[in-house]
Each structure stands twice: as C-alpha cells, then as structure tokens.
C-alpha cells in the first residue's frame, strides 16, 4: 500500500465519523468553528498514527477520544473563564460517562442542523458559505474543494479561515435560529446548496471528476436536510429540483463532450429512478403546502419535461402557468423570458413575441444575450427572417462564451439564407 493509498483509506474512515465528531465537539465546546478545527486535528492525528499502528478496530472511538482530548487541552491552554472551563470539563466527564458503548447511539440530528445553519450563515459571503458547507457537512478537504471550484488551494483555505473568524468574532459560533428567523436562514442554506449543485451541473464532462461531483455533494446535503428537517417544503422542493435536473446527466453531452439541449436529448438516457425520487420529494413538498415555493415551482417545471415521453409531448401551457406563478414569487425578468418561450411553444410564436417585446426595454436584461436570442428564434418561426438575423447578430455580440457565440452566429447565417430563398 502506498502512502497515498493509506491516506485515502484513513480519510475514508474519518469521513464516516466526521459528522458525529464535529457535532459532539460543537455541543461540548459551544463553538462550531473550534469544533471544526479539532475534527481536522483528529484526522491529522490519525494520519500520523495509523500508518504505523494500523486502523484500530473501533476507529470512531479512537477519533472521538483523540478529539475530546484535544478539546480539553485547548480549554486548559486557552484563556477561557475558569467557571466556564469547569462547567465544560464537568460536561465532558458527564458526556464521557454517558457515552454509549456503540457510537451508533448518538442522535446528532439537531446538532447537525445547527451546524448547517452556522456554515451557511447569511453574514458570510455565498462563496464562503459554500466552502464551509462542503468542509463541515460533506467532510471534503480544502484541496478537494479547491479542485472542485477550479481555484488555488490557498484561496479556499483563506476563505475558510476568514469565514470561521467572522463567525467567532460575530458571536455566531454556536446558535440556532428559531421562529420567523428560521425561514430566512433556511433560504440562505438552500441558496448555498443550489449554488453548489449548479457549480457542478454546469461543469462539462471529462474534466476533473470532482467538479461534477459537486452535484452529488449538493444532493447529499439535500438528503441530510430533508431527513433532519422533514417538514420544510422548500428543502423538499430543492431536493426535487436537484434530483430531476441530475436525472438528465447521462443525456446532457454527446460523446465529444458537447452539450445537448434538453429538447434534443435522448430521453431513454434519463434516469427514471432518480426522476421518481424527485417526483416523490416534490409530492411531499406539495403535501406540506409548499407547491407555491420557488424551488417547488422550478421542480414542477422540470417535472413537466421529465414526464413527457417525447419533446413533442411536452405540456407547454402547464409550464407557462408554472412560470407565471414563479414570476409572481421571484419577480425576475429572466423568468418572464422563460415564460415567453413556453407561451411561444404553447400558443404560437406570435404570443411569445408579444411578451419578449415587452421585455426589450427591461434594464436588467440589457446585456442578456438570451433575450435577443429568444426573440430571434420566435421571429424566425414567424418567417420574419431579416429581423431574426439582426436579433441573432445582436445576441452573438452579447454572448460571453464562444460556444454560444458560434451557435448564435450560425443561426444568424441560417436566417440570412432563408431571406434569400
């Protein structure tokens, strides 16, 4: 076994125990960032010791004892108030006595929820929240997070250190939101989970596997959230949205890695089991009265596609209805543009164009290439080729990435050809 193999094997054992380590330490120390440090220290200790001694028969107990030892050391070294120190030391004895034979007897649900809320605190930037969540909830190493986000390891390390300092200095190291604050805080959590998912989802295939792996990490967080907070409809809505989007993974690129648009995908490659899981989560969100939530509505739209046997079977008027609801919740002109596409499919290009033309002076869409892109498509369908060409040219000029730019240029050329004939 090489050193790298041993490292991976030890990391694997540590990952099983990581949620319990960090939650137990957080409860003990009343300090999530410190608990995170000590959980990492336990890993380092194992990496130092186990290659020589072998993995102990009860690795969880070893890691926990080591981490608790360090916690006590930390308290002794630290400038903690004597009273608090005594209190915690007493807690610790109590805890150790009460510690069951099997580590399996620990119900960490509430503590895990606190951990997630702390990692995703709205006081932190979205990037910092994403890095902390991957580290504290999924047990990813700094190096793995850096590779997944295509950033230098030092950048991620710094992000994590700063975020933990912010939490500690703002007195947010150990608290759980309650009441009305809970829903605001939950949306901050869901936002980060979805950000992580999309970061992985937009990654092309064939790159470093860790990037698409972000989708799985986000799905995992979604499963964690919905199992410890099973009555939150938006958490279920987000899980549904992620499952339904992820179900198309195998169909999204061709053999050369080029993206295939949803309507052109081979639906036989869509993962029906995953679709079913997504539909179940969406069903539960609706049962809980969450049908009108923004994630549930987005999931409902994807569900319409998932349920259509062929692209031609798509129920566009139903999709347009969901977009109208979504626009009322989120008030984004991009959603209105999507609704225009759905209306264009359901009622014909004329009706879609009417909506798009109303959006042409929307300041938020001024440099959004898909606005003239969609307009060009609708004009082309109406046989207004010259205007279509101008729209596609305008869209190409705004497109940020080369692949999209080239596609829009090709469409402009096709419209020009149609003018000739």
């Amino acid at each position, binding site marked *: 076994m090489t050193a790298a*193999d041993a490292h*991976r*094997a030890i*990391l*694997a*054992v540590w*990952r*099983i125990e990581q*949620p*319990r380590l960090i939650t137990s330490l957080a409860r003990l120390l009343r300090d999530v960032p410190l608990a995170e440090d000590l959980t990492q220290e336990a890993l380092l200790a194992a990496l130092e010791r186990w290659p020589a001694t072998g993995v102990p*028969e*009860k690795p*969880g107990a070893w890691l926990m004892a080591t981490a608790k030892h360090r916690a006590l050391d930390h308290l002794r070294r630290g400038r903690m108030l004597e009273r608090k120190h005594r209190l915690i030391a007493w807690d610790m004895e109590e805890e150790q006595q009460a510690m069951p034979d*099997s580590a*399996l*007897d620990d119900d*960490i*649900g509430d503590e*895990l929820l606190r951990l997630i809320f702390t990692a995703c605190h709205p006081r932190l930037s979205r990037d910092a929240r994403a890095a902390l969540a991957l580290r504290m909830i999924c047990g990813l190493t700094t190096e793995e997070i850096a590779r997944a986000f295509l950033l230098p390891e030092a950048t991620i390390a710094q992000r994590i250190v700063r975020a933990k300092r912010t939490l500690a200095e703002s007195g947010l190291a150990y608290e759980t939101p309650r009441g009305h604050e809970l829903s605001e805080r939950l949306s901050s959590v869901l936002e980060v989970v979805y950000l992580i998912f999309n970061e992985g989802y937009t990654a092309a295939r064939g790159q470093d596997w860790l990037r698409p*792996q972000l989708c*799985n990490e986000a*799905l*995992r*967080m*979604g*499963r*964690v959230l919905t*199992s*410890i907070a099973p009555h939150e409809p938006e958490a279920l809505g987000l899980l549904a949205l992620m499952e339904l989007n992820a179900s198309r*993974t*195998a*169909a999204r*690129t*061709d*053999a050369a890695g080029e993206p295939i648009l949803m309507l052109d995908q*081979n639906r036989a*490659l869509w*993962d029906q089991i995953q679709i079913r899981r997504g539909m179940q989560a969406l069903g539960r969100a609706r049962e809980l009265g969450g049908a009108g939530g923004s994630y549930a509505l987005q999931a409902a739209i994807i569900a319409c596609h998932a349920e259509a046997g062929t692209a031609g079977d798509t129920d566009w008027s139903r999709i347009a209805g969901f977009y109208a609801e979504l626009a009322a919740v989120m008030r984004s002109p991009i959603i209105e543009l999507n609704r225009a596409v759905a209306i264009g499919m359901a009622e014909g290009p004329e009706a879609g164009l009417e909506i798009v033309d109303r959006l042409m002076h929307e300041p938020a869409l001024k440099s959004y290439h898909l606005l003239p892109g969609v307009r060009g498509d609708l004009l082309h369908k109406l046989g207004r080729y010259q205007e279509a060409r101008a729209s596609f040219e305008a869209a190409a000029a705004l497109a940020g990435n080369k692949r999209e730019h080239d596609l829009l240029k090709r469409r402009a050329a096709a419209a020009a050809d149609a003018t000739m004939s």
Partner: protein
Amino acid sequence: MKFMFIVKSDHSVAPTPALLEAMHKLANREIRAGRMLDNGGLMPIAEGAQVLIIDGQLSVLDGPFVEAKEVIGGYAVFELHNKEEAVAAAVEFMQLHKDYLPGWEGTCELRAFAPGGP
C-alpha cells in the same frame, strides 16, 4: 460514485436482535448522513423463484430449492466518493456482525455501479 453492497453467507444463522438493532442504527445514521440511498434484507431463496434460460429454453423454477451454498442475505446502495470509502463502510458493517453474531461467517461484496450514459 454509487456502490452496491451485497452480503453473502453460507451460515443460515438468524441475526440476533442485538445485531438487527445495531444494523438499524447504522443504516439510520448513514441515511441521515445522505450516504445510504437504499437497503434491504432478503428472505431465504426457498421463498423466492428463479427464471432461467438454458439451451435457449426459458423456464420458471418455483421453490422449494435445495438451499444454495452461499446465499445473498441483503444489500445496500451507497453514494460515496471512492472505493476506499466503500471499504471503510463495509468494514464497519462487518464489524457489527463480528461483535453481535459470534461464529457467523460471510462476505460483504462491494461493487461500483457502471456509469450511465452513451
């Protein structure tokens, strides 16, 4: 990466309540950690059936069967980062058998799912 764990044994020892309880707790923890996607214990082959093709002939064999030497007793599906994590999870699972069902012998086989797509 998705893995299937398949537990096989030629010991037809019924699991003790203590083992069942420990496995139940382990499964709950892994489900809550978002790692385990599915699991299940299987009834003996005597209560199942086999559909086979031999020499181009399709036939249905309904029990009772002569007990096969090695029987699949259960399975679980995990979403994990790599094979090392699968091994670590299987070791922990088998350790429970060692602790709570002395004398039992068996295998937990772990297999990665084939990747989907073209």
